[in-house]
C-alpha cells in the first residue's frame, strides 16, 4: 500500500500520540531489519544488494491498550499491520509485503504471574523466550518449549506459528501448553479466550488464534502450563542398522507410552555426517538416534530400561551417554554462525508430519522426487525425525543447493519450485504443508490447496474478523488488503 507523504505525516502524529514519539520510527536505516527473518528470499535480496519490501513505519506499543489503539487507527486509514516478535521465523511471516505498519510487540514483555498452585505462567506476548525461561527456572519451573529460536523468539511468536521445541515429544508443542490468551482482534477489540482449554462450553476459540500467525489477531498475553524442573535428565545414543529399524523402534517406544523426552533419529546421510562430527567415528551406513528421558530417577530408570530393550530388539548398537549429553549441551551451537546454514547456499527445511504408517513412504517419495527433478542443481536431501507423537512423527527434512543461480529472480523461482514440489509430495502422501515452522509467506499459496473445501471456514472467519484484510496481509492464503 502506498501512503502519501502528507498522509503519512498526519498518521505519524496520531501514532505518536498513542505510543509516544520515541516509539514511532521512520528512517530506512531502522526499517530495513524489519523485513528480514530467517526466510531465504529476503536474505537473498539483501545478499544481492537489494531490499525486500519494507514497512512504512515501525510502531512499538507498550501495552495492550496502545496495541488496540494502533490497530483501530490502522482500520480507520486502511493501513496494513504486520506483527513483529523476535524476527526468528523461517517462513517470512514478518515480511510487510504490502508496507504499512510493522508492529513490534517486544515492549509487551512482562511476566504477569507465576501461579505456583496451578503450575502456570501468564506473560505478555512480546516477552523473549530466553528471558521467560530464566525467570521460570529461578522459581523452580520450566516452560518445556525449547526451540532453536529460544534466544530470539517471543511467547506470542511461539503460539502464532504453532512452534515446537526439542522436548516436544514428551511435553507437547506450544499449542499444547497454552491455557488461555488475550488477543487484540483486527478491529482493535481486546478479547480473552476461556480460562481453561478443555471444557464442554461450546466451540473452542483459543485454537483459532493459535497458528493464525497474526491474521486473526495479535496475541498480547498468554497463560501457559509449566513443568517442575526434573530431578534427572539423561540421554543416550544408538546406531541402528538402517532407518527403518530406527523408525520401528521409535514407533514402538511411543506406542508403549514410555514418554521419552526426545527421540532424534537421523537418516543415513545425516548419520554419516553426524556420527563423524560428534563421535569422531566413520560409518558408511546406519541410522543414528539420540534418545532422552527426564523426571524422577526411579521412573526414568524404568522407562530407559524398556526403551533401550526395544532399541536392542531392532538391532541397535549402544553408543553410550556421552554423545547424547554432548548434543543436549551443544544444541544451540548449530544455530550460531559459522555453523548455521547460510549463503551462498540455497536451503530450506521442508518439514511435514504424518502418521506412522505413511511416514517412510512419504520420506522416500520426497527424496526421490526432489533429487530427480533437481539433479542438475545437485540438490542434497537429508532428514532427521525429531518430534514424535503417539500416532506419528515429523520428518525434519532439508534440502541444500550449494550453487544456486546468481540472478535473484532465477534463484527465487528455483527456490519456490523446490517448495512447490515438496509440498505436493507432502500432501499426496498424507502429510501437511508444515509441522512447526508455520506458513508465513513461504507457504501461503499452498494453504487453500491443503484445506480444499475446508478453507472456506478459515476464509469466512477472516472475512468476519478482518474485512479489510489488514492484519498480516498476504499470508495464510488470504490475499492482499482490500
Amino acid at each position: 500500500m502506498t501512503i502519501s507523504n502528507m498522509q503519512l505525516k498526519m498518521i505519524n502524529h496520531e501514532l505518536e500520540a498513542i505510543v509516544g514519539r520515541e516509539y514511532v520510527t521512520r528512517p530506512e536505516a531502522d526499517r530495513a531489519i524489519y523485513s528480514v527473518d530467517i526466510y531465504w528470499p529476503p536474505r537473498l535480496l539483501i545478499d544481492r544488494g537489494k531490499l525486500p519490501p519494507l514497512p512504512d513505519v515501525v510502531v512499538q506499543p507498550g501495552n495492550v491498550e496502545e496495541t488496540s489503539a494502533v490497530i483501530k487507527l490502522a482500520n480507520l486509514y486502511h493501513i496494513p499491520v504486520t506483527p513483529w516478535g523476535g524476527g526468528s521465523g523461517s517462513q517470512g511471516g514478518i515480511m510487510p509485503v504490502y508496507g504499512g505498519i510493522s508492529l513490534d510487540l517486544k515492549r509487551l514483555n512482562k511476566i504477569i504471574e507465576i501461579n505456583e498452585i496451578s503450575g502456570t505462567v501468564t506473560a505478555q506476548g512480546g516477552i523473549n523466550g530466553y528471558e521467560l525461561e530464566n525467570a521460570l527456572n529461578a522459581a523452580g519451573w520450566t516452560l518445556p518449549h525449547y526451540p532453536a529460536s529460544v534466544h530470539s523468539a517471543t511467547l506470542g511468536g511461539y503460539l502464532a506459528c504453532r512452534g515446537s521445541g526439542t522436548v516436544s515429544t514428551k511435553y507437547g508443542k506450544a499449542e499444547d501448553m497454552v491455557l488461555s490468551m488475550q488477543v487484540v482482534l483486527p478491529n482493535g477489540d481486546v478479547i480473552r479466550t476461556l480460562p481453561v482449554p478443555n471444557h464442554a462450553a461450546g466451540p473452542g476459540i483459543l485454537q483459532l488464534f493459535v497458528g493464525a500467525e497474526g491474521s486473526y489477531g495479535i496475541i498480547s498475553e498468554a497463560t501457559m502450563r509449566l513443568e517442575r524442573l526434573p530431578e534427572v535428565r539423561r540421554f543416550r545414543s544408538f546406531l541402528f542398522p538402517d532407518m527403518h529399524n530406527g523408525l520401528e523402534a521409535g514407533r514402538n517406544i511411543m506406542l508403549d507410552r514410555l514418554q521419552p523426552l526426545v527421540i532424534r533419529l537421523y537418516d543415513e546421510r545425516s548419520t554419516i555426517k553426524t556420527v563423524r562430527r560428534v563421535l569422531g567415528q566413520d560409518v558408511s551406513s546406519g541410522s543414528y538416534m539420540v534418545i532422552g528421558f527426564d523426571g524422577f530417577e526411579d521412573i526414568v530408570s524404568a522407562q530407559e530400561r524398556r526403551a533401550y530393550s526395544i532399541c536392542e530388539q531392532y538391532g541397535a548398537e549402544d553408543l553410550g551417554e556421552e554423545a547424547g549429553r554432548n548434543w543436549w549441551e551443544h544444541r544451540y551451537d548449530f544455530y550460531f554462525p559459522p555453523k548455521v546454514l547460510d549463503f551462498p547456499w540455497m536451503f530450506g527445511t521442508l518439514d511435514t508430519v504424518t502418521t506412522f504408517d505413511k511416514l517412510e513412504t512419504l520420506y522416500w517419495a520426497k527424496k526421490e522426487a526432489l533429487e530427480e527433478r533437481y539433479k542438475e542443481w545437485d540438490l542434497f536431501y537429508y532428514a532427521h525425525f525429531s518430534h514424535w507423537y503417539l500416532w506419528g512423527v515429523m520428518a525434519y527434512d532439508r534440502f541444500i543447493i550449494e550453487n544456486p543461480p546468481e540472478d535473484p529472480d532465477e534463484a527465487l523461482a528455483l527456490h519456490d519450485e523446490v517448495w512447490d514440489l515438496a509440498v505436493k509430495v507432502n500432501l499426496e502422501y498424507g502429510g501437511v504443508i508444515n509441522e512447526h515452522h508455520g506458513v508465513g509467506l513461504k507457504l501461503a499459496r499452498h494453504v487453500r490447496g491443503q484445506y480444499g473445501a475446508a478453507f472456506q471456514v478459515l476464509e469466512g472467519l477472516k472475512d468476519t474478523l478482518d474485512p479489510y484484510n489488514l492484519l498480516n496481509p498476504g499470508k495464510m492464503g488470504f490475499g492482499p488488503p482490500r
Partner: protein
Amino acid sequence: MSYLEAHEKELYELRFSPMCKPAAEVANLTQLESHSTRGRVMMMWRIAAGHLEWGEREAELLYETTLDSISEAFDVFHYPVSQYMLDARAEVWEAGLAPAAVQGAVEKAKESSATFPAPESVDGVLVLAGEIGQIARHEYFSSVLEDVLQRVKVAASIWPADCGALAYALGARQEAQTQAQQVVERISDLGVKEIIVDGPETAWALLKIYPALGVNLPQDTKISLLSTLLFEKGGNFGEISETVVYHDSRPAYLIAEGKPTHLAILPGYLEDENQFGEGEVYEAPRRLLKLMGAEILFGSWTRGLAKSCGADDGIWLTHPHLAQGLARQRLEYAKSLGADQIIADSPLCAYWMAENATGGDPSVRWLPEVLG
C-alpha cells in the same frame, strides 16, 4: 580498504543471526530491532559490501549502543563484535560523520585532560586513574583511593590521566593516539616501572588500546589491577554482612583471559560461575569480598556476560538517557536478586549507578569504599 571492508567476510557470516538478542543491552532497553546486534551487523555488512553508504541515521545507530562486547561474549563462537564496532566508529569519525554529541564528548575529554597534569615525580608506584579522571566527583574518589593505599602502606602517586580510552571507544583514533603518547612519554620521563590502574577501563587502555595504536610502554613496565594489589597486600578490611551483587564492567571482558562457554547461554544454566568467563579481572575483587565474608549473589548476567551499566564506551556522555536506562536496569536486576548492595571495582561504574539510584535501590559502592 576501509576499516569495515577488512571485516566483510565475518560480517557476512553474522549479518542475519538473531541469536545474541538476550544480550544486547540497548536493544533490550528500547526494544527497537535496529538496536539489536543483528540489525547493526546487517547494516555494517551492507556498507562494507558497498550496498549502502554511511548516512546520518546509520552513523547514529553506531553510537546508540555500547561497543556490544556482550554480544561477542554471548556468541558461542565469539566473533569480535566489539572490534567491528570500534572500526566502524573509526570509519565514521574519520569521514566526519560522527554525531555532534560524540564529537562534543571527545572534545570535552581533551579539555579536561589538561585539568590533571602528570605528577612531577612519583613516590612509590604510579596509580593511573583514568576512570576517576572522567568523574565529576573525582576528588572524592581520589581521596578514597589515597585512603585505601595508605591503609595497605603502599606509597603511590595518583594521576587521573585521560588515557585515551574514551576517544578510542568513540572512534577518534588520532586523538586517542595523541593522548596515549602523552601518557607514555610522561611515564618514561618519570622512570616508572610499576603502574596500578584504578579500574578495568584504564587497564584496557594500557593493555589493549596502546598496542593497537602502536604506542608502547617502557619495557618491563608492570601493570596491576588495584584489587589485585589490595589482596596481595592483605590486611583486615572488616566484614560485609549484607548481600552483594558484584558488577563486572564491560571493559573487564576486554581484558579477561577466558570467555563464556557454550554452557553459559543455556537458558537457566547456573551451575558453575567460571563458565561465564575467567580471569584475574573477575577473580581479584571477588577474592577480596569473600575475605570480608560477603555473600555474593549469583545471576547469569555476570563476568563476561555482565550487562553494561551505561558507564562504558562513552555512551553515558553521548546518549545519557540511554545510559540512565541501562543503569536503572542494573539496579533493578540487583534488586531482583535480593541484593543489599552493588559493588564494582570500576569507579566509573560505581559512580554512574549511584547517580541513577533512587530510594529502595541497593546501595552502590566502589570496591575501595567498602574496605573498612
